C-alpha cells in the first residue's frame, strides 16, 4: 500500500464491530451480502448488497431474440423459475396480441403451482437450517426433488423448465402423468404431519421465530412488500385472486393470512399456501382430461419474429410475491427494454435492513430466510 492511500482506522470499542454476512456465508441466500454493525450481540445497522449476483439479465434480454429470452429468464430465480418464463411469455403475448389456447393455460397453472410447492419446501428447509434444525432441511430438499421429477417428466428439465413460449407451452403432457402428479401430491400431503412435529409445531422453532423480524402492515405496504410476507402482516392480497390471470378465476382456493408479521407468521402462511397449491393442482388434474385443443398458438419464424411496437405489464403471484415483467417493443426482433419486478427486490433490501436492526446476530440469517429473499431477483 502506498503511503498516501493509508487511512487511519478509528477502531470502535471492543464490543462493537462490523460483521460480513456474505457474499459467501452459510447464513445467506445466494451470493448476497449483508454488512452488519454489531454492538455486543445486537445489530445496530445493516447494509444490504445484492451486486454480487448482478448478471445483467435485463440488458442481456435486449440483445436476444424474443424467444431466446425464454431460456434466459428462469435463471433470475433458481428456486422458483417457472413464474419467470410464464410471466415473460404473458407480457409478450399481450403486446403481440396472441391468444393462448385454454389447455396451455391450465397446464401453465399446474406448472406455476407445482413450482410454488417446490419453492416453499425449499424455503422451509432453509429457514429451519438457520434455526439450527437440519433435518427439515434435508426433508424439504428431498421432497422438493419429487416435484422436480414431475418437472423433468413434463418439461424435460428438472430446474429450468424452459417449457413455455409466447403463445403456449412446448410439449404435451406424457401419458399417465396426471396420475403421477396425484400420487406425488398425496405423498407430500401425507408428510405434513411429520413436518408439523419436526418443524412447524416444534417449540424450539416457535421460540426462535416468534417476534423476529416483524413487518407491520403499514410498513409492508410502504416498502411495496407483496406475497406471503404481506399476507403474514394480515393483508390478504394475492394477484391470483385480485387480478386473475390464466384460469385462476375458475379455481377455488383460499388466500391464507396471519396477523403477527414476524418470521413465524411468514412461515405459517407458506405452510397454508402449500396446502392451497396442492388443492389447486388437484383441480387442474381433474379438469385437464376434458380440455382438449392445441398447446400453442403458432408464432412466426422466431429468427425473424418482430413483435409489434408497444408495451405491456404482466404480473403473476410467484412464491416470493408479485412478479412482473414490463416489456417494451419498438417493433424489432428483440425487446427494446425488459424490466423485471422481482418481488425480492422489495423485501430483501431496505426491509431486510430494517428488520435485522435491533435484533440479534443469530437472527439475521433467519430473518432473511423467513422473508424468502431471492438475491438474483434483487439485482437482475
Amino acid at each position, binding site marked *: 500500500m502506498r503511503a498516501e492511500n493509508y487511512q487511519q482506522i478509528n477502531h470502535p470499542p471492543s464490543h462493537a464491530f462490523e460483521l460480513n454476512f456474505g457474499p459467501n456465508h452459510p447464513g445467506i441466500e445466494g451470493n448476497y451480502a449483508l454488512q452488519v454493525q454489531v454492538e455486543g450481540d445486537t445489530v445496530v445497522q445493516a447494509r444490504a448488497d445484492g451486486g454480487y449476483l448482478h448478471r445483467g439479465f435485463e440488458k442481456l434480454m435486449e440483445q436476444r431474440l424474443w424467444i431466446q429470452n425464454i431460456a434466459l429468464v428462469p435463471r433470475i430465480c433458481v428456486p422458483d423459475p417457472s413464474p419467470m418464463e410464464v410471466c415473460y411469455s404473458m407480457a409478450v403475448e399481450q403486446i403481440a396480441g396472441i391468444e393462448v389456447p385454454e389447455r396451455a393455460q391450465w397446464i401453465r397453472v399446474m406448472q406455476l403451482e407445482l413450482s410454488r410447492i417446490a419453492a416453499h419446501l425449499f424455503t422451509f428447509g432453509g429457514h429451519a437450517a438457520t434455526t439450527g434444525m437440519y433435518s427439515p432441511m434435508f426433508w424439504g430438499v428431498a421432497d422438493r426433488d419429487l416435484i422436480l421429477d414431475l418437472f423433468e417428466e413434463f418439461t*424435460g*428439465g428438472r430446474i429450468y423448465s424452459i417449457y413455455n413460449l409466447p403463445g403456449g407451452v412446448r410439449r404435451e403432457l406424457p401419458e399417465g402423468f396426471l396420475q403421477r402428479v396425484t400420487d406425488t401430491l398425496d405423498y407430500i400431503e401425507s408428510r405434513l404431519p411429520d413436518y408439523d412435529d*419436526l418443524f412447524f*409445531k416444534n*417449540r424450539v422453532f416457535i421460540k426462535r421465530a416468534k417476534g423476529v423480524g416483524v413487518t407491520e402492515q403499514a410498513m409492508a405496504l410502504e416498502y411495496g412488500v407483496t406475497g406471503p410476507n404481506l399476507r403474514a402482516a394480515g393483508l390478504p392480497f394475492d394477484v391470483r385472486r385480485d387480478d386473475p390471470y390464466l384460469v385462476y378465476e375458475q379455481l377455488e382456493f383460499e388466500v391464507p393470512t396471519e396477523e403477527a408479521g414476524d418470521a413465524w407468521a411468514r412461515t405459517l402462511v407458506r405452510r397454508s399456501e402449500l396446502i392451497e397449491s396442492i388443492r389447486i393442482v388437484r383441480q387442474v388434474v381433474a379438469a385437464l382430461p376434458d380440455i382438449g385443443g392445441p398447446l400453442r398458438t403458432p408464432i*412466426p*419464424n*422466431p429468427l425473424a419474429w418482430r413483435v409489434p411496437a408497444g408495451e405491456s405489464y404482466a404480473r403473476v403471484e410467484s412464491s416470493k410475491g408479485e412478479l412482473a415483467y414490463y416489456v417494451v417493443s419498438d417493433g424489432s426482433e428483440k425487446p427494446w427494454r425488459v424490466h423485471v419486478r422481482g418481488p425480492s427486490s422489495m423485501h430483501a433490501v431496505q426491509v431486510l435492513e430494517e428488520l435485522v436492526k435491533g435484533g440479534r446476530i443469530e437472527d439475521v440469517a433467519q430473518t432473511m430466510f423467513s422473508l424468502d429473499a431471492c438475491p438474483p431477483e434483487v439485482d437482475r
Partner: protein
Amino acid sequence: MSDYNDEGSLLRPLRALSFLGRPAVTEPLEPRLAAEGYRGFHLNEHAECVGCSSCQKICDNAAITMVEVPELPNDEAKGIRNLRPAVDYGRCCWCALCVDICPTGSLSLSKEYVHTCTQEEIDSYFMLPNETGMHGTFYGKGWQKTETSDLLDLQRQEMGERPAELRVDNFDEIVDGFTPEQAMAEASRCVQCGMCHDACPTGMDAPEYIRSIYEGDLEQAVRWIYQSNPFSHVCGRVCTHRCEDACSIGVRGTPLAIRWLKRYAMDGVSHQRIQEITQEQRAAESTGHTVAVVGAGPAGLTTAWDLARKGHKVVVYESRQQPGGMPRYGIPEYRLPYEMLDRDIETITAMGVEIRCGEEVGKQVTMEQLQQEYDAVVLAIGLHLGRSTRIPGSDHAHVRSAVELLRQVTEEGTIEVPEEVVVIGGGNVAMDIARTVARLQRQQWGGVKTVVTALEAEENFLADPAEIREAAEEGVTICPSRGPQECVVEAGQLQSLRTWGVCSIFDQQGRFAPHYDEGDEQCHPAGMVIEAIGQMSNADQLLGDMLTERLEWDRGRLQVCENGRTSETWLWAAGDCVNGPDVVHAVADGHRVATSIDEVLRGALKHA
C-alpha cells in the same frame, strides 16, 4: 392456528422416534434413467442434417459452432453442406430451441446427462454430436420433435393463379403475384441459411433480398438483386429456381417461393426507380475499351451489362428484329409477358449498352471486322436450331421443330394450327409449345387436341411438375413412356405419329439406348408433329469457315476455358452455345465472361 404455538411440549420432537419403525428411504446406486422427454446431450442424425446452421442462429448462448466434416457430402445444388453443429457444453443450457427450430428434424436431445473429465481433457466438453450419443452409448432419444413443435412455418404461401378455364384461350400471364401480406409471410419463413445463394448459378444474394423484403425495403431488395442479375423481371417469372431445390425449409416442407419473392420485389419498385438504383453501380469513368457481343439474349446482354457497368463501351449485334433471345422467342407470353423482358432490356441499355438489332454477323458484318474493330468479342448465340428425331417421315413439311414454331408465334403473333397436334418431348420446351398450340387450337377450333408423347415416365419428366400439371389442366393430353417410331404419311398428307411403349431408356452403362415394347403400339392422329427434343447452335455461317476450323468443338458445342475464353485470344463465348440450359445459367455465364474480359482488358491477367 391455535395449534401452532409455543405452549407445546419440549418433547414433541421425540415423536420422530416413530421413524425407527418405518422403512428407510434409500436411493439406488445405479445411474437413474432420465424421463422420456428429457433434455440431455444432443443427438444429430448426420445423414439428415444439411448443415443449414439454424440451430446456431437460435442458440441463446452461442454454444453451437458449425464444424466442417470433410467425409460428409457437400452438394451445393442439393442444398447440403458438410457442416455439422458442434456444441460447447460449457455454454449450452439445454433449452432445446435448436431441436424445435431444426428444419430437417435431424437434431434431438438424448436421455444421457453425465459427463466428467480431468483438467487435461477439458476440451471434451466441446462435442460434435452424432447419432450415437455423447459417449458412443445410445441412451435413447429424450426431447425430440413432435407434430406440433415446429417453430418454423413449413408451408409456403399459395400463389394465386388464374383458373384453367380463364387462361385456356389467351396468352395473359397466369400467376397473380404475391400480395404484400403474402410476400411478408413468405419472406418471414426464411432462416437465412444461404443454401439458395450457393445453389444459384449466378450466386444471387437471395437471403439478403428476402430479408429486405421482410423489412419492407423493396428498393434495397432490388439493389441486392441487381448485384448479380440484370434479368430479374425474367428470372422472377421463368427461372428454373435451383435456389428452391436447395432451400433447407424444403427438406420437410415446401421451400420458400424465392422466385416469386424476386418477382414481388421487382414489381414493387417503379421501372424509373429501378433504373436509378442500377445506375448507382455504374463506373464513374470510361475505360476506353470496346467490346462486341454477338447475340442479345440473357448471356450476351449480361456480359454487356457487366462490362458497361465497369466503364467499357459495348455494342451488341442481334440478327433478329428485337433483342431478348430465347426468353422472347422461346418462352410463351403467358409465362413471361414480353413487356417485363423489355423492362429488363431497357435497364441494360440505360447502362450504356448499344444494341444493333437486325445486324446479322456473317452477313452485314463479319467476325473479322469485329475482331479488328473491337478489343474483345463475345459469342452468345444460343441454341436456336431444333434437333430432329430423324424417324421415318420426320422430313415432312408438317413435322416442325418446337423452337422454330415458338419463334414464329412471337414474330407473327399467331400461327395456324391443325385440329390435332402431337408433340414429341418431355421437357419445358415441349410443355411450352404444347400449351401454346393448345391455346391456338382453342382459339381456332374451339377445343384442344394436343398430345405430348415423351420417352420418360411421368415422374421422370424433365419439365417442371407445375408445367405438366398446368398443361393437363389446359386440356393437353400427356402420354408418358412413348417412343416415336414413324410420322405416318399417306398420299403426301401427315396422318399420325406411331409410337411404341418404352421399357427402358438407358442401357446398363447409362448410355442413351431406348428399349421398346413393340407389341404396345399406338397411333396418335396428327395434322402436325412437333419435335421438342433439344436444340443446337447454328454457327457455321456466322463464324465463317476459317474461324470454325480454328476453334475447338465438342459435339457441336464450342469449347472454352474456365473463364469462357476460346482458343482465340480475342474471342469469348457464353450462354447456351457453351453451357446451358436456362436463363439463369446464361446470366451466370455472362458474368463469368465479363469478369474475364474486364481483367484482360485492364491488363490484370495475361492470357496463358
